[in-house]
């Protein structure tokens, strides 16, 4: 048991920064990202005896993060209520960090479109692997990614040259 735990913790320590980053891009909030990673790590721990010797540990962890984020997105949706205006909400601080732009733009995407973007352009996965992570066909990944890029281009304008290139 202790040996298993040691290997598990070694793996987590080596990957937690990247896993947090992936989770953050999936949800847009660092606090929620920590929740996602924590929940995913529990699942990973449970599966560890079965997968520890596998060469695809990173892939398994990545997939767990993405699926956990997608599940949480569903739960958050369930509990939210749209209203015409939000009263008594503090205004955003001046000088919002520019890095929030891309994250805000990602918020405009559906969760699976967002996952496609994160997996394709942050994780640098080929389309087939993205399809494997999301449990869909490669063609679906292509179409979801294309739609996502259209949205990002609309939101971000000319900020992202690669988007323009990808759509051309």
């Amino acid at each position: 048991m202790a040996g298993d735990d040691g290997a598990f913790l070694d793996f987590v320590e080596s990957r937690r920064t990247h896993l947090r980053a992936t989770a953050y891009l999936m949800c847009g909030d660092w606090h929620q990202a920590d929740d996602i990673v924590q929940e995913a790590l529990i699942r990973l721990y449970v599966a560890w005896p079965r997968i520890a010797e596998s060469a695809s540990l990173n892939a398994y962890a990545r997939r767990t993060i993405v699926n956990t984020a997608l599940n949480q997105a569903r739960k958050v949706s369930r509990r939210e209520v749209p209203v015409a205006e939000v009263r008594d909400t503090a205004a955003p601080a001046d000088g919002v960090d520019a890095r929030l732009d891309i994250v805000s733009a990602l918020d405009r995407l559906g969760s699976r479109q967002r996952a496609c973007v994160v997996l394709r352009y942050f994780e640098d996965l080929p389309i087939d692997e993205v399809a494997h992570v999301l449990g869909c066909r490669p063609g679906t990944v292509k179409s979801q990614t294309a739609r996502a890029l259209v949205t990002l281009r609309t939101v971000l304008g000319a900020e992202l040259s690669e988007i323009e290139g990808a759509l051309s």
Partner: protein
Amino acid sequence: MTDLRHALREAVAAPPEDGIDLIAVVAQGRQARRGRRRWVVTAIASATATVVVGGVAVAAVVTRDAGDGTPEPAPTPPERIEDLQDPVRPPRDFVKHPVRDFEPDAPLLRGGVVVGGPDDDLTSAYLTEDLQVLVSRWEVGSGDRYGLVDPAAPTEVDWLPDYPGAAEIYPFCGFWARGRGSECVQGARSLSFYYFSPPRSDRIETLRYDRVNREWSRAPRPPRTEGGAGSIEARILDHRRFVIDGPAGRTVVRLDRAPFCDRRRGLVPRHLTDTGVGNVTAEGDFVTVEYYCASLTDPGGEGENAFAVLNAGGEILVDLQRYRGGAKMVADRYVGFRGMLVDLAGGRVFRLLRQEPHGVGQGWLSAYAGVMSVQDGLVTWSEVYLSPEDAANGGPRSGDAVIHLVPLPNS
């Protein structure tokens, strides 16, 4: 000019401090592995004990055995924690329990049945018109699984077959029902569920489960009640998280403050030493723990923890703790409801309203009211979903909690 890859990497280039709690990961992972029916609080207490001790490295923690027979070094837990480290608690039988008829403006389950039990895996329960209990169980990798329990034979769960299409479904009971009567419960012949398609959208699809033929089918969406504080989701408090059998016959009701801080549920924040209830009962009787989540609307980061202790004589002891949290624990962009008041004495009901501006979407607002009743040591919690109109007209201000104490009518 930049490109998408660069922009994504820039976005994560300066992350805030890592809040992942590996102690909790290992503790909960071990428990899931063993699959025993044990009170989660035991594992929580184990993890908490380690946190409270302070300075105990994660590596040391994970060499501990939590009850699976592996020899372990013997770290010394704080004395007061020991009460909760009994590895096996005696199972408590399911019980049948009538629920009172509340005031019209409060949620109710008329003639309903509350079923409680020791099964750690059952995360919620809903009633059906024929007084069966629809329970759900969270299963890693497959989401919620639903089943029916007959209170007359409470040890067996009649699990529903796998539902088609959706990854995760939710019972309809409550979200489209309101008022008095049985409409807030599930049907005797069929059960209704909904799911979001696509996920994270507002588009709802409906599934119907035919209890007679044991078949799933698509179904039209139930009519939504218009206006007013509308819908009710009633469930039994999750015994793992909220109701703890304390020593000397006490039932401890643990109250959550912030729904978005689930991972901290039951864990003592690192900078706190002990959130036990020593002020409200005999010193050393027991220790329970509470997570917290501070509010951005409170610049000082002041938070509160509330504990209610119900003893066998019906006496209610409430401890409301306040503290100032560290910056790390401030929930940026989420506002947990702050302030909590509990009065469970004499079978009274408390109602809590709160609103939660949700930062990610900007323009989303949630408002909930909860009603808790306690009778004979059983706790029923109902959550009311307020319409946007309610939220816009006289609803509480962001970050505030409004408490109404509603006396039960004479029965």
